[in-house]
């Protein structure tokens, strides 16, 4: 049975330093507010999992939460590079970031295997690519009927999956609709889950295209209106495309990023715990003077590869 609690409590009770944390939402319904809470609580050494580590993980990586990233596409959709992500990979700032990268199809199937209680999933994928040799958790598998060679990917089983949804009911059933992405699989694959919602309504009337996660499959629910911003919740908000464009400049510079973090994340206290184990804000921004990362080249060329 899901418990409805404040966001800070949901994160405090579910996420530990070093955990494997998946925050999913495919452009739509990205749990930004929960990501900010993870930053505020000063969590460290996380293995972050996400198909499209866009602005939300750029912020968490830049804030020093992550030790490793498991992903399939890391960019600012329609805008360009993720500068904090690139700074971590190219310059080890604020800390080195280990990468495990896949294709979207591979990541989606890794969640499917996790949700299905299987140790692996099979797909036509990776064959002939550098990914197949670069990443672990990818193996060749032979069809026992046709002898055809295919690819197996290992199941993903996050310690915690975090998503944002439109609604829950008082019993803790969760409902989301629109582009529903891989969130059902990500929640069902995880040991624990946190769902932020726009609102709690007395009853979840059926909606076209809606996914319902029964209360007994969810850990914690926190009511956070507009908790996906700058992503959106269909029926509640629209995607703040201006923010994604603005993020390019904010994130390009370490110092400006640090200021933004202080002002817009660490300065906000949606549910207490503000002073719980946080590093001093100055310490995070300290490395900014070392910048000059040379990022930003060719962003326009590379974004097309998002497909």
């Amino acid at each position, binding site marked *: 049975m899901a418990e409805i609690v404040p966001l800070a409590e949901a994160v405090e009770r579910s996420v530990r330093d070093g955990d494997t944390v998946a925050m999913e939402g*495919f*452009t*739509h319904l990205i749990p930004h507010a929960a990501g900010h809470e993870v930053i505020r609580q000063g969590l460290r050494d996380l293995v972050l999992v996400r*198909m499209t580590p866009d602005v939300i993980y750029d912020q968490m990586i830049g804030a020093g939460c992550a030790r490793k990233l498991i*992903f399939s*596409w*890391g*960019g600012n*959709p*329609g*805008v360009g590079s993720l500068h904090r*992500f*690139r700074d971590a*990979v*190219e310059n080890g700032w604020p800390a080195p970031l280990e990468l495990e*990268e*896949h*294709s*979207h*199809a591979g990541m*989606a*199937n890794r969640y*499917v295997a996790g949700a299905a209680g299987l140790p692996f999933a099979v*797909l*036509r*994928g*990776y*064959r*002939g*690519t*550098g*990914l197949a040799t*670069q990443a672990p958790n990818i193996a060749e598998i032979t069809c026992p009927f046709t002898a*055809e*060679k295919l690819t197996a990917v290992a199941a993903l089983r996050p310690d915690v999956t975090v998503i944002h949804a439109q609604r829950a009911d008082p019993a803790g059933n969760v409902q989301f609709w*629109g*582009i*529903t*992405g*891989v969130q*059902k*699989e990500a929640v069902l694959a995880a040991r624990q889950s946190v769902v932020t919602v726009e609102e709690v309504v007395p009853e979840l009337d059926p909606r076209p*295209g809606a996914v319902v996660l029964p209360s007994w499959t969810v850990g914690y629910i926190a009511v956070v209106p507009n908790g996906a911003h700058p992503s*959106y919740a*269909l029926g509640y908000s*629209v*995607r703040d*495309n201006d923010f*994604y*464009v603005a993020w390019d400049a904010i994130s390009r510079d370490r110092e400006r990023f640090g200021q933004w973090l202080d002002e817009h994340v660490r300065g906000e206290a949606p549910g207490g715990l503000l002073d719980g184990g946080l590093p001093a804000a100055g310490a995070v921004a300290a490395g900014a003077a070392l910048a000059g990362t040379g990022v930003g*080249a*060719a962003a*326009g*060329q*590379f*974004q*097309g*590869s*998002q*497909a």
Partner: protein
Amino acid sequence: MTEATGGADGYSADEIMTVTAARSLRDRMTCFVGIGLPSEAANLARATHAPGLVLIYESGTIGAKPGWLPLSIGDGVLAETADAVVSVPEIFNYWLQPGRIDMGFLGAGQIDRFGNINTTVVGADYNAPKVRLPGAGGAPEIAASCHEVIVVLRHSLRAFVEQVDFITSVGFGEGRGSRERLGLTGAGPLKVITNLGVLEPDPQTCELMLTGVYPGVSVPEVQASTGWDLKVSAGLAEIPPPSQDELTALRALIAVNPNGGAS
């Protein structure tokens, strides 16, 4: 970002590139579309000669009919106008993987003489890249499983290389026969459309060769922007410039984009 070279009759190099890409799409085709140049071209085709084009985005929207260019593959307009919205695992497993999609429309960071695509890292050492690119996304399986693939990217020596630093998505691998050996079911990148012209694989070797140039573009100019000894097709054609209708439609499409184009 590459500066568009000014076109002859009041159109830019980017505009003729997008128009040429759009013309490659036939009505009622199913088309798996990436954001950016591919999405621009596919939406232009739908707005002009291919109103029945079925646009499929990896966010799970099948038959999306956006009235403007979406900034991301997950914009609300895609879900709201789609014939069907399915989960991300389903779009890859039930729709892309079985070879159900006619055309895959990709961008690229680097592309090599055999049409292999790199969107992962620039530099020889994966663990210490010169430039970290966004990664694979849906491209490896689009490149593997669509009946055919079109790649759209701007010409430059940095982008058109003898051999990509990292094969993110397989074109023709090491040449003819590679796709068959790997069990890739689609035909591969049958066209690479740039801001200078069009490259297509040599039927014998699968090496990309120049088969078309835009008005005012010379073959040496294209070769100077290509990092391998670019062969020229015996049937090299001059590609017709955009019609006024095409240009008007393209500019209208970009004008209504809330963020001024997906460039």
